[in-house]
């Protein structure tokens, strides 16, 4: 009897519980979890053994970085670079043989000399990959070991080597995810490292923690990717010798903004801001011309223009489709050819020796984009942003006028420039040494 009574009691209790549970389920299912209370990642570390190993991680990483730095730095050369806008920056060049180092040089950039030193000589160049091979002081033994194939370096720490005016600097970067993709221009396999997109400068060298060379950072279409080491080293071996800097038309261009497009009556292309008066293009191309196509290939931007020009050997002929004040014009110019009148090119004389990069502002004069302090322009007191409104008696001179006049001047002669600097008006003497 007692057992039966207990059984009935249990069954009753069970039914009550089931009813309460069903009601609770119905009630609870009517709620929605508040979105703002989305669960946050826990502050605690993941797995049990990981916590043990993670304890000394910072000290351990610092020790590893010190060791890696000791091994990597001798194999990295810091190369001063002059950008298209005249700024001086630095790139790490990685030593692949005792006297050869490689780096990535963007179109418009050129190797310059450091203070008191000579500019490294470019001995070979792979234009498609922007790769240059530099002749450097021989140091046997300090050669990088390339990382095999196109393995993805993650998840792990990698070492990023940046170049500064003080020398090469290393830093650890945690790589959580990498992706492989194909470079449409070369067909090379490239690495995209998500975690370093924001912090990786183009040209930076990347190594593993055991000091093997992963590759060089490359900026393409706003995305910083990594060109793998093996591909770079293979390209360096087959790169053609670089006797001269290729692809110098002597033309400075800028993007065609909407106001410029309206003013120039052109829909697409790049607008010519300066033509080196000593270049072959000086007689055929004018500032404010819009270059719409080269050899029939549309020019989509400044980078594309530099790429198209620099990928041709010196002496090659280019057919430029121009829009000149709205009228279509076709001109053929030779890359890197000496100008008809003779004299210095941008790389060899006048403009560079004057230390000036100018941009014509039609009807107003010539704006100083860059003035190298160690040159005649610097000595005259010219600064970037100055507007040259008068050259001697000539009002609103074009950039070409100033550079031609400087080139024609004899040593010791001076050009009288009237300059507007903000609200100030100055007269400066640009002396030819």
């Amino acid at each position, binding site marked *: 009897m007692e057992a039966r009574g207990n059984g009935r009691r249990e069954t009753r209790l*069970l039914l009550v*519980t089931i009813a309460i*549970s069903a009601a609770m389920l119905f009630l*609870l*299912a009517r709620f929605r979890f508040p979105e703002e209370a989305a*669960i946050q*990642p826990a502050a605690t570390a993941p797995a*049990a*053994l990981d916590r043990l190993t993670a304890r000394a991680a910072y000290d351990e990483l610092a020790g590893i970085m010190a060791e890696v730095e000791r091994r990597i730095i001798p194999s990295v050369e810091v190369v001063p670079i002059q950008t298209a806008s005249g700024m001086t920056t630095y790139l790490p060049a990685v030593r692949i043989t005792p006297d050869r180092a490689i780096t990535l040089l963007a179109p418009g950039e050129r190797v310059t000399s450091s203070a008191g030193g000579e500019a490294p000589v470019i001995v070979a160049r792979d234009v498609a990959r922007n790769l240059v091979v530099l002749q450097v002081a021989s140091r046997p033994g300090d050669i990088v070991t390339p990382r095999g194939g196109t393995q993805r370096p993650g998840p792990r720490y990698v070492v990023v080597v940046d170049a500064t005016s003080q020398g090469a600097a290393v830093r650890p970067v945690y790589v959580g995810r990498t992706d492989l993709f194909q470079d449409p221009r070369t067909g090379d396999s490239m690495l995209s490292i998500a975690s370093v997109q924001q912090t990786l400068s183009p040209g930076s060298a990347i190594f593993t923690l055991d000091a093997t060379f992963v590759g060089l950072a490359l900026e393409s279409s706003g995305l910083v990717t990594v060109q793998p080491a093996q591909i770079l080293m293979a390209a360096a071996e087959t790169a053609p010798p670089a006797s001269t800097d290729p692809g110098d038309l002597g033309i400075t261009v800028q993007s065609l903004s909407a106001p410029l497009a309206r003013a120039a009556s052109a829909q697409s292309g790049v607008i010519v801001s300066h033509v080196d008066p000593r270049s072959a293009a000086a007689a055929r191309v004018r500032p404010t011309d819009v270059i719409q196509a080269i050899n029939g290939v549309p020019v989509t931007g400044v980078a594309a223009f530099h790429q198209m020009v620099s990928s041709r050997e010196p002496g090659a002929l280019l057919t430029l489709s121009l829009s000149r004040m709205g009228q279509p014009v076709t001109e053929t110019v030779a890359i890197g050819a000496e100008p008809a009148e003779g004299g210095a090119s941008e790389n060899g004389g006048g403009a560079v020796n004057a230390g000036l990069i100018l941009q014509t502002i039609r009807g107003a004069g010539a704006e100083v984009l860059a003035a190298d302090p160690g040159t005649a322009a610097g000595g005259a007191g010219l600064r970037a942003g100055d507007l040259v409104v008068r050259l001697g008696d000539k009002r609103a001179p074009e950039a070409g006028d100033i550079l031609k006049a400087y080139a024609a001047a004899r040593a010791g002669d001076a050009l009288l420039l009237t300059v507007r600097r903000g609200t100030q008006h100055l007269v400066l003497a640009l002396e030819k040494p």
Partner: protein
Amino acid sequence: MTLRGELRRPMLALQRRAALGLRPFTAPVTIFIPLGISLGPWGLGIISPQTLAHLDVVVTLALATLGVFIGVAGARQAPAMPRLFAAASLEGVITIGVVAGAATLLLGTWGVPLDLPAVAVALTLGVCASASAAPAAEQGGDPEHEIASRVADLDDVLPIVLGGLVIGIANPAAPVGPVAAALAILVGLGTAVCGWLLFERAEGSAERAVFVLGCLALLGGAAAFAGSSPLLAGMVAGWFWVIAPGESDKLVGGDLARLEHPLVVLLLITAGASVRPDLLGVWLFVAYVTFRLSGKLIGGWAASRLAPDVAPSNLGAYLIPPGVIGIAFALNFAQVAPTAGGSVVFAVALGAVLCELLTLAVVPAVRRA
């Protein structure tokens, strides 16, 4: 007796027992979980997050030790009482089904943003809920109580195997569930064979204790490193030591008995200290307590129908105290899935305390008499 009267009696009993300082207030869970909360980062801060990180290793060791105990108990009792083992397994499966089913449904309707499959969280709650700890029966005492204690020992076996799969699903660094469970079994077997070869060749109790501790560390460490369940690895090892020739199980049991209580206390304090305020934890807590209670009662009822001659009709009520295994498994889950695991530890640890308190409300009349 009316239902109201039935509910009033346990409340009176609760008051009387509380005044005497007896159960449920003396149950380890009701003491050490609140103690852990008060000492932890959200309490006095004596146990800092860094200390908790160090204790993680001890938790792994404790998981392996508990696994060995369950394996030894299972291997000794299951062949002797196959129907009771089947009844206990049925009760465990029903509890898992009720809790995991309800949790899966609720997690879906709540729209909780989780960083792992909702079914993994739901199954974890189910596995935690299925563990029971009927208090040890006294010699010559209540036979129903004795049977309930055995069922409580046996109903952990199947959930631990399922837990091995869940750990594989929840751990992003681990192989897929079945492979993770197979790895745990391999680790357990490999270590058990090593221990079996060593224990009886030890030249003294000190040397044997070193072997036993080494095996435990190897069980927990290797299983955690492989991303699988130390509980499962420990259970397999314990099971092996019972069925293997010799007296390995007795030797291990004797040595581990010294470790049992300190490890349980440390485990519960760690669980308490790991409890952090968490909205999802509160939601899961409500669901966990409600559906664990109904799952246990339904499971106990079904088990007593499967084996009426061995399982008492009020078995479910005996199995409501959750004990340590569920909390241990929740901590194991939190090790591999820290984000959702924090909420699960909150729900399971506080749910265990509440279930211990609820025990009096549904405790069988025979125990209250």
